[in-house]
């Protein structure tokens, strides 16, 4: 990166410091619980140096009064590491799904009176305010058997040797933090609160990519057939509409579309093999 080129986040590395002490408005979509109507509330937050969405939500929690002067309650949201490795604090910020910890206010709202809009992810049921229930995402990992079926934890020596290239590919795929950005941005992945219907609803890019990850591992391979079976039917890989939104919003730049293509090929071969075998 050079001194002048703006970074992908829209700020140049060297720039005039945004005015410290300015006030930014946070327009937040609130909801008391499942089935309850949602409403918008706006809070004015004085911006301290280095502020991000998390620190602003913390400031609101300490003094939850709207711009109309109405006493409200602290906003409910999910968060964990605040370093963009746990995936918890995902939400929709100014219309785009992303982690709130890495969302710097100086980049999003550099001027006095700028507005930042926060909404919960759209494809998962709201628990309260910005906190959504992402159990479906973890359920999908069960569907594709996203694990290496080891013989047990007793000592059995080393794992398989592996070429650096293979490790590099697997490491990249293994950085998926189950944040759900790829699902929220996917036109084929729709809100489905009924857990009974998850097994036939589109599984999503993250799980397809995890299937590829474990199919690549020397021991993980033994479940390849089962993984591909689970991706052949309803809600499997053929539901992908190739919109390619997933790869654009992935905060870890995981090559999700490559994974979809790789699994697509594997499923085709697998289904032929099964056709001739049966």
């Amino acid at each position, binding site marked *: 990166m050079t001194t002048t080129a703006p970074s992908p986040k829209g700020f140049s590395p060297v720039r005039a410091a945004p005015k410290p002490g300015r006030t930014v408005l946070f327009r937040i979509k609130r909801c008391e619980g499942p089935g309850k109507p949602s409403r918008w509330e706006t809070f004015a937050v004085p911006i301290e140096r280095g502020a991000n969405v998390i620190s602003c939500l913390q400031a609101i929690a300490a003094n939850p009064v709207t711009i109309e002067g109405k006493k409200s309650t602290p906003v409910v949201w999910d968060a964990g590491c605040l370093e963009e490795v746990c995936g918890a604090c995902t939400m929709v910020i100014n219309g785009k799904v992303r982690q709130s910890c890495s969302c710097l206010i100086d980049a999003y709202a550099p001027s006095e009176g700028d507005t930042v809009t926060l909404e919960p992810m759209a494809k998962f049921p709201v628990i309260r305010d910005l906190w959504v229930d992402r159990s479906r995402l973890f359920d999908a990992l069960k569907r594709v058997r996203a694990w290496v079926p*080891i013989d047990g934890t007793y000592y059995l020596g080393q794992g398989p040797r592996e070429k650096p290239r293979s490790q590099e590919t697997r*490491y990249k795929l293994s950085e998926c*933090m189950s944040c759900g950005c790829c699902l929220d941005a996917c036109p084929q992945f729709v809100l489905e609160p009924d857990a009974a219907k998850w097994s036939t609803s589109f599984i999503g890019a993250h799980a397809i990519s995890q299937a590829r990850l474990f199919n690549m591992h020397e021991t993980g391979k033994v479940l390849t057939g089962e993984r591909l079976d689970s991706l052949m039917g309803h809600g499997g890989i053929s539901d992908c509409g190739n919109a390619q939104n997933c790869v654009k919003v992935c905060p870890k730049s995981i090559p999700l579309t490559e994974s979809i293509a790789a699994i697509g090929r594997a499923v085709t071969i697998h289904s032929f093999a099964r056709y001739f075998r049966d």
Partner: protein
Amino acid sequence: MAGLAAAVRIGEAGIPVDLFSLVPVKRSHSVCAQGGINACNDVARQQGYSEYEHFDETIYGGDYLADQHPVLEMANWAPRIIDLLDRMGVPFNRTAEGFRDLRLFGGSLFKRTHFAGATTGQQLIYALDEQVRRYEVEGKVAKYEFWEFLGPVLDDGRCVGIVAQDLRTMQVRSFPADAVVIATGGCGLVYGKSTNSIMCTGAAAARCFKAGVWYANPEMIQVHPTAIPGADKLRLMSESARGEGGRVWVPRKKGDPRAPREIPDPDRYYFLEEKYPKYGNIVPRDIATREIFDICVNQGLGIHGENSVYLDLTHKEPEYLTKKLGGILEIYEKFVGVDPRHEPMKIFPAVHYSMGGLWTQYTKGRYNPAQALEKHRSGSAPPIGSEVGLGMAPGEINNMQTNIQGLYAFGEVNFAYHGANRLGANALLSCIFDGLFCGVSVSNYLRDGAPAKKPAESVSKTPFDAAAKAEEVRFKAFLDGASKGEPDAKTNPYIIHKELGQEMTAACTVVKSAPRLQQCRAKLAELRERFRSVRAADAATWTNQSLSYTRAVGDMLLVADAICLGGLERRESRGAHYRTDFPDRDDANFMKTTLTKYDAASERLSIEFVPIDGSLVKPTARTYGKVEKKDEDSKAPPKPAMARV
């Protein structure tokens, strides 16, 4: 991480496991560990390294405060643990031939640290999370995620279950269990902002402490010298930035308003270089931490009068920096929005790890020399091999059990392995070791201990109902407080927490002294008093996060008091604990565990010092001699410019 390792091990033994977690387990704080995991390996072994030397380094690094037998067992197990993780599919970095690659890390002359990119902790916990998910599908493990542990249920001095609350429905209920393993990590949030995740409040440990579990070495809190100050948390900046020529400075003029690049060299105070002409910016961790702290807190010379100093790399070529330090510079750029290749970074020490924690027991293994040996000479032949059971006796039911029968503590929440200071890349190891090695102890306790005669299910319902009832009453009281109207600054839990963090950071981190610690205790007493009439900010009976937070603030006040009191009573300096009024280590009086007990009736803490078991290695001065400069990351070759994605 420790909890997942335990769940896998115990589940594997055919024992049904209920796993309770504040967050989906995949999102636990262990994901933040970057550096790696230490273990003796074939290459290092041929160069003269051994499990025994790893043990010796850990004891020495911990400044002879750890009981020595458990550390020996952990070091001996380390290579087996790496092999297991490898089998689970952890993408460890590889050599051209496909072997696991190694890096040099603090406290060792040998390459003994295994790593997976720049996110080793994340990769390790994912591997265990995957195994647990597999067991979940197989019906061996049941997960209770977004449930908060409120306390152990005790019957006749024995732990027979827990009380927990669903953070969505706010339902409080008790769960019978023949054994309970606490694996809840550290307590960084006691300091307000730290490098810890948002749930690392220490509340679970505090709840056990209140129930009668002893808390050991609370004052041993590791502070990392270089972190990126943030409005919400402090993120680590690797020391390799200094190793690559980074210069630490502040403006000579207090509160100089100029931008860093407008300040000419004569107006800059390169305080490390001036004070330590020999080592300059690469003085060891503890010295760097103390000096930066002194400059900001005592001398008020921090940038713009705030708690930060410059770590300057701008005199280096940007291309060179990208090549050598790309990964870590990207973290700075991502979270500060400034390119450190062109503008000096602002850094400050940050609370990072708690060596202390719940007190745990163990049974010694077979290795018991007639007298303690001299410090191991690096690279020389080890006096013993690395067979299982030399350090701790495998399967003994008291291994990592607290003073309450049936209640175990694994991972950072216990005090067992790191003494007064933890070595880099030993944390992940101790977590997984506890889960695997002591998981068997839990299984054996079920088979041979009290549950065999009287399972928790057959205990009368009274203690379960009483425990759940008590927590419901507390919950209702918080709700009532919330509906009484707006809190003022005195009763606002967020403000109490903020003041707590500021006070603890000022008094109980880098530099401690009796007067300051006494002042801190007085402040804590004031905060506790204010907390009695605390007003949670939300009276909702559904998904009331504010209430859960408020309750944790109360628990943090207790942990803080233990940290402060331990710091006051330990009248010496050792490892991470530095007292200006007692600057030397005092083995005669303080090579002892700080044992803290809570008296529920008087709500008071008491402290006693109990001797450690140092029967394996004799203590020597922890100077790192003339290789001091080689300590920690500064000795390590610059980290490869890892693509951080």
